[in-house]
């Protein structure tokens, strides 16, 4: 591949964050007009490499070439000028500005010093045509759902007329339907001659979309080549450095223990409508459905994080009505929340403090904590959830996503509740960590907990749970039992009834 056909190439790229060597000497060429996949476990260095290409991070050493010219980018603005724009993994929008303003933020058309509204409208319409995203251009971004905010990010990246657009996990928060539209726009971008660098945990997506794929592990490039020869198994084998079967094990038979958690007629006006279900001891009940269908709201109401208008919750036959998470924990519940960074972890604090966040009181002597005891307890917990770490005194923010999630499970194990709610426990987590999390969950259920398992990834819900409820518009749309008819489950997502729920 000569320099002229590569839109972006890097040579011997190195980038460290403190003691962590995120990218260790990567050399890679991305051909113009390609859809180029970049895969690897969490913490493999994919996002960092991409940020180096877009000028969001500066390399410690190495050469970056964009369209044949060597570049040393100082900030994302220079990256955009050089022709590379990146759609970040975390959403970076201006919440109080409108969709249209956010989309055209970096490339606002002007007439003199004033924004050119007519031109804005024309450019926005063009982008809508390209993406087929139907968003109200005048809506405030802060009020949109995450999936819609992500669409805004995609449109913004497209608006910058980049030679290469980097998309970091663009489909993670999208529904099946939206993912299809995203894929359509990615193909459309490539057809128009731009290049797309796609970072994704969804290997099927990478296989279906990309023409080249590069695999990273521990900050190094494992290999790169045409996608046509790859399968999920070959990619996974290179990602983890060992063969690992990606199939979920057979679901367990239906639980037949006594009912542990019973929820009846749970209603929160406008959000939840008459939700009822039971979970038995040792059972993992799945809650599936589209993002925004009300799955997380059910969890938050049960856990006392949000209030509800009517309904009854029983644990082991005793009525409970938690008014706060503090209350709910006292009554035998615990929740691993949806977003580990915003709701789960105190990122600047140590692994030890995070593991013991809910149980400092119990581990104290009359309110005084002993660091030694803490570290010992934390080390044990960390081991029990298969955490990969150097020291329990290390800041939790320095761990990879999968390991951060394991910390939350360690905290749950430490609380040892009767009812455990887990909301999206494996979002953005690599396969090995996901496996470890599923095993932890199964162990916890086997010890007698009733587990409510929420996930946007249907394969996962069906693989982990022997019984699944599909939530649609705040109602229980249907109930399914293993073995599943996947098509029926999916149609329930969109409001078609499967088996009648009793």
């Amino acid at each position: 591949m000569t320099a002229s056909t590569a839109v972006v190439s890097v040579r011997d790229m190195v980038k460290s964050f403190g003691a962590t060597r995120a990218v260790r000497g990567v050399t890679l060429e991305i051909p113009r007009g390609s859809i180029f996949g970049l895969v690897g476990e969490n913490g493999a260095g994919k996002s960092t490499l991409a940020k180096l290409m877009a000028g969001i991070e500066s390399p410690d050493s190495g050469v970056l070439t964009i369209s044949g010219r060597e570049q040393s980018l100082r900030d994302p603005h220079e990256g955009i000028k050089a022709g590379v724009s990146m759609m970040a993994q975390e959403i970076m929008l201006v919440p109080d500005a409108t969709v249209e303003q956010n989309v055209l933020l970096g490339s606002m058309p002007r007439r003199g010093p004033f924004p050119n509204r007519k031109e804005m409208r024309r450019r926005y319409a063009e982008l809508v045509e390209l993406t087929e995203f139907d968003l109200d251009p005048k809506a405030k971004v802060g009020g949109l759902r995450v999936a819609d905010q992500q669409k805004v990010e995609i449109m913004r990246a497209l608006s910058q007329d980049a030679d290469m657009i980097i998309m970091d996990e663009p489909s993670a928060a999208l529904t099946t339907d939206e993912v299809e539209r995203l894929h359509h726009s990615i193909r459309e971008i490539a057809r128009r001659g731009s290049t797309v660098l796609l970072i994704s945990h969804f290997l099927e997506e990478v296989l279906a979309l990309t023409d080249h794929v590069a695999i990273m592990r521990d900050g190094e490039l494992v290999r790169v080549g045409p996608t046509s020869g790859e399968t999920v198994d070959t990619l996974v084998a290179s990602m983890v450095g060992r063969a690992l079967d990606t199939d979920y094990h057979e679901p367990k038979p239906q639980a037949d223990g006594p009912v542990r958690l019973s929820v009846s007629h749970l209603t929160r006006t406008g959000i939840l409508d008459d939700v009822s279900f039971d979970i038995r001891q040792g059972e993992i009940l799945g809650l599936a459905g589209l993002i925004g269908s009300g799955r997380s709201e059910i969890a938050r109401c049960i856990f006392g994080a949000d209030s509800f208008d009517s309904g009854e919750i029983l644990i082991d036959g005793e009525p409970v009505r938690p008014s706060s998470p503090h209350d709910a924990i006292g009554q035998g519940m615990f929740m691993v929340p949806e977003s580990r960074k915003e709701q789960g972890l105190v990122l600047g604090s140590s692994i030890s403090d995070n593991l013991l966040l809910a149980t400092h009181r119990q581990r104290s002597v009359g309110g005084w904590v002993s660091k030694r005891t803490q570290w010992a307890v934390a080390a044990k917990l960390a081991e029990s959830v298969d955490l990969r770490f150097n020291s329990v005194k290390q800041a939790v923010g320095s761990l990879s996503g999968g390991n951060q999630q394991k910390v939350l499970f360690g905290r749950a194990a430490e609380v040892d509740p009767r009812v455990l709610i887990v909301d999206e426990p494996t979002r953005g987590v690599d396969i090995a960590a996901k496996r470890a999390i599923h095993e932890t969950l199964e162990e916890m259920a086997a010890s007698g907990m009733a587990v409510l398992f929420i996930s946007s990834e249907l394969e996962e819900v069906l693989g982990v749970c022997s019984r699944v409820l599909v939530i649609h518009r705040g109602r229980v749309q249907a109930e399914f039992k293993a073995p599943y008819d996947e098509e029926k489950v999916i149609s329930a997502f969109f409001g078609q009834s499967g088996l009648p729920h009793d």
Partner: protein
Amino acid sequence: MIERIRNYGIVGVFGLLFVVLAFTSPSFLSLQNGANILDQSSVLLILAATTTVCIIAGIFDLSIAAVATASAIMTVNAINAVGLLGGVILGVLFGGLLGLITGVAITKTNVNSFIGTLAASFTYRGLGLILAAGGLVTIENEQSAQTLRDVMEGKYLGLKGAVWIAIGFVILVGVVLAYTVWGKKVYAVGGNWQAARLAGIRSNRVLISCYVLSGIGAGVAGVIYAGRYGTGATNAYPDSYAFTAIAATVVGGVSIFGGSGAVWRGTLGILTFALIGNGLNLLGVDTTYQQTILGLLIFAAVAADQVFRRKSA
């Protein structure tokens, strides 16, 4: 490297100042000068300790100077009403009560602490004015006034009583923050309010407790004033005390984003300010420059914090 500068830069600055002053000014290293520095800083040491706790919890309390002033007046009034010991206790509790009111009002209404405590500050200054009936109150019983003055101004092991009170208070707050469950909660709430709540910590209660502690610290400052001067005046502590406490905390290396830091940092910040002031005086530098130098130092500390955040993000 940057992390280390941020974490221990202030220790270096303090050490450097100390050494430079020791070599350039013969009177600096005298015990008398050290005792003077501590005496001038005693109230600020107390206020910086509670301010550190508040900032770690993710809140600012701008009302402390106003609370301390109102407490000084309350202490005098209470001594006149119920006697010395009861008066002193009531004076401290009054500070705590004002902190409780601030905390409840702010957490219930979800007002930003900066604005909320600014409003509280005006309110409590007004309250002080009312309690002082518009001006100055004086401890009527000569005996009581003398006893309290002896406690605050009398020397014990070379240091004034007020200094010992400050040292005791700072150590107590530091130890409690570092080694109790409550302290862990303060760090968690400041680091991530939402996560702390979902882990079963009653985040708002923790915040309220910080406002109460802040009020108690201000109450102690009020008692010190009443002791030193035998009076409670509406201008006992100007608001610059609150700003200085916040600035010292930041210069000491406590992140204004909350969730990290320690009480000794606020202490070191105040002592650094004192050294700069004292040193410049001993060296005969025009006092006009002192404020500017302090301002630059504060800015450098905040900038270092910001740079560190970006590097580690």
